């Protein structure tokens, strides 16, 4: 049940995080809007809560799948429970620190660095539990276990790197400081992507019923290419930061290796379309299929902005925001929703009615259409800022791209409504299943005592 509890917490985190994102969008357009809650707070709340959603549901999925599909039981449920409570209490403290205006002031990790200590500890709990549980599984690992293991190891390493600024050697050299940030954040994103993509492959394998795919040479070559990019590809964020040019040229080359993945997606497109026809009534598959489309579009955008010439005009603009949003919403969120609905589809006590399934499908459609408008508006705004900027004051540029920022914010509202509709049914089903399980556990205990 601990996996389901993580998922429930993730749902709450995303629902509130999106709400703060929408408030931030309106504050961007109308700086006087909810002035008491500064944009510096709403942005931090939004970022931390949606990133938490990714971790919570990915972790929840792993805790749920391991004892059911891999080994008979988790190495330690107690440790997983400790992990849950530590994560929850840290999260509440992070939110309290933002609301009271206490910041660490770093991009993505705006909370005071002392709060990273419980995050490190909870991650050690998770890693220890995962590797100990997996040590009971003596069969060769399919690629998704490798991806989960990689995500756990590299999160630890890159999260440590993200804190190197606490050492004066890093903090006092501006270029090193910026490069360390891009390096750690770029690779850290790669590490959580490993957890999420592992989950996607896990579900796809289970739905398709073909375990061989996840152990094939092709699956492993794509995994190692992804890991190679995680380690060396981050420097495409630093094309415009003064540094050794070999470093950036190398990153350019590494980033272009993703063309292989891009080509592979196009090659496999027909097969995935026929798979969609077979699985169109399976909610988890529909989310996975959506993620597939967003992977294709987002990788295309990533490849374009990884070419230094295009990066020159788009770096630091809303095009990069579009790339980040496309990855976190279009890819990560869709995969994690697939994971939740895959889990729900396997429940013993609770089943979604046709009406509820229809409502989830409508939510998905609304979310996809809104996300498309959201990203197009961001890309146009970014290109407007990057290409047509001729040295005017910043507020003039923002004024010129305002219609697109307005479209982006409104699309954000409908995106939130679509996702909320999906989350509502997911949350309800998870809560009911947890309650029913408690009930049957109590009945079992009572029977045991009697006998």
């Amino acid at each position, binding site marked *: 049940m601990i996996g389901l509890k993580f998922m429930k917490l993730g749902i709450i985190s995303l629902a509130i995080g999106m709400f703060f994102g929408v408030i931030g969008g309106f504050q961007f357009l109308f700086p006087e809007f909810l002035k008491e809650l500064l944009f510096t707070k709403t*942005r931090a709340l939004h970022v931390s809560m949606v990133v938490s959603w990714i971790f919570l549901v990915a972790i929840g999925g792993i805790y749920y799948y391991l004892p059911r599909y891999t080994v008979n039981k988790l190495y330690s449920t107690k440790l997983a429970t400790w992990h849950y409570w530590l994560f929850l209490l840290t999260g509440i403290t992070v939110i309290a620190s933002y609301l009271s205006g206490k*910041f660490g*002031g770093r991009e993505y990790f705006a909370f005071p660095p002392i709060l990273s200590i419980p995050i490190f500890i909870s991650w050690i709990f998770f890693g220890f539990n995962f590797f100990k549980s997996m040590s009971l599984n003596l069969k060769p690992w399919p690629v998704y276990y490798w991806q989960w293991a*990689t995500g756990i190891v590299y999160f630890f390493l890159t999260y440590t790197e993200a804190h190197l600024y606490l050492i004066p050697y890093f903090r*006092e050299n501006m*270029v*090193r400081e910026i490069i360390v940030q891009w390096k750690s954040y770029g690779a850290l994103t790669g590490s959580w992507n490993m957890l999420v993509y592992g989950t996607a492959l896990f579900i796809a394998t289970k739905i398709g019923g073909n375990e061989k795919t996840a152990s094939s040479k092709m699956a492993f070559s794509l995994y190692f290419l992804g890991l190679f990019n995680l380690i060396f590809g981050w420097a495409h964020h630093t094309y415009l930061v*003064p540094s050794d040019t070999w470093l950036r040229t190398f990153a350019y080359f590494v980033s272009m290796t993703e063309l292989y993945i891009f080509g592979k997606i196009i090659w496999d497109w027909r097969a995935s379309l026929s798979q969609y026809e077979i699985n169109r009534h399976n909610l988890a598959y529909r989310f996975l299929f959506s993620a597939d489309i967003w992977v294709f579009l987002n990788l295309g955008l990533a490849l374009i902005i990884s070419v230094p010439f295009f990066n020159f005009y788009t770096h630091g603009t809303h095009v990069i925001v579009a790339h980040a949003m496309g990855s976190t919403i279009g890819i990560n969120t869709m995969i994690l929703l697939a994971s939740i609905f895959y889990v729900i589809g396997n429940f013993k006590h609770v089943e979604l009615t046709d009406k509820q399934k229809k409502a989830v499908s409508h939510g998905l459609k609304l979310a996809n259409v809104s996300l498309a408008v959201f990203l197009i508006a961001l890309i146009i705004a970014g290109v407007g800022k990057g290409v047509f900027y001729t040295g005017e004051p910043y507020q003039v540029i923002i004024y010129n791209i305002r219609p697109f920022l307005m479209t982006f914010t409104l699309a954000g509202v409908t995106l939130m409504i679509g996702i909320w509709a999906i989350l509502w049914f997911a949350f309800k089903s998870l809560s009911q299943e947890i309650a029913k399980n408690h009930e049957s556990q109590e009945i079992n205990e009572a029977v045991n005592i009697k006998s």
Partner: protein
Amino acid sequence: MINNRAIFFALLISYFIYTVYIFVDGTDSLPGMVAHNEESKHGQELFQKYNCIACHQFYGLGGHMGPDLTNAMSYRGGNVGELIARAFLANGGNGMPNYNLSEDEISSLIAYLKFVDKTGTYPPKVYDMTWYGMIYQEDDPDWPSEDTE
């Protein structure tokens, strides 16, 4: 057949070597850098304390509510940039909150922005582009200096 575990550990080792190399060599010998003095260090602390990165950027990293501040101090030459920054820091405006900063705090933040300004130009103004789209800029440590040209 190459073992998956061997590839994994080879990549993990290269990660460590690459990381150390970058932190030691790739970011150390840049021209034009000035020392980070006590006042600018205090400014850096204040920048983090008020979470300024939520709205502003350095080298394109950060929020979009306000302008990128990498070269805010050399904006339009002379001390124009400093005067504009001081006015915003003292009074807020155009979406920037008034944090009621003291004169000392404002000076520290200005010192920090001056320190950042000397580290490079963003986006680069003097650069070369290769046929395959790579950009080399004048602030790079391996950019040919006038003496060697």
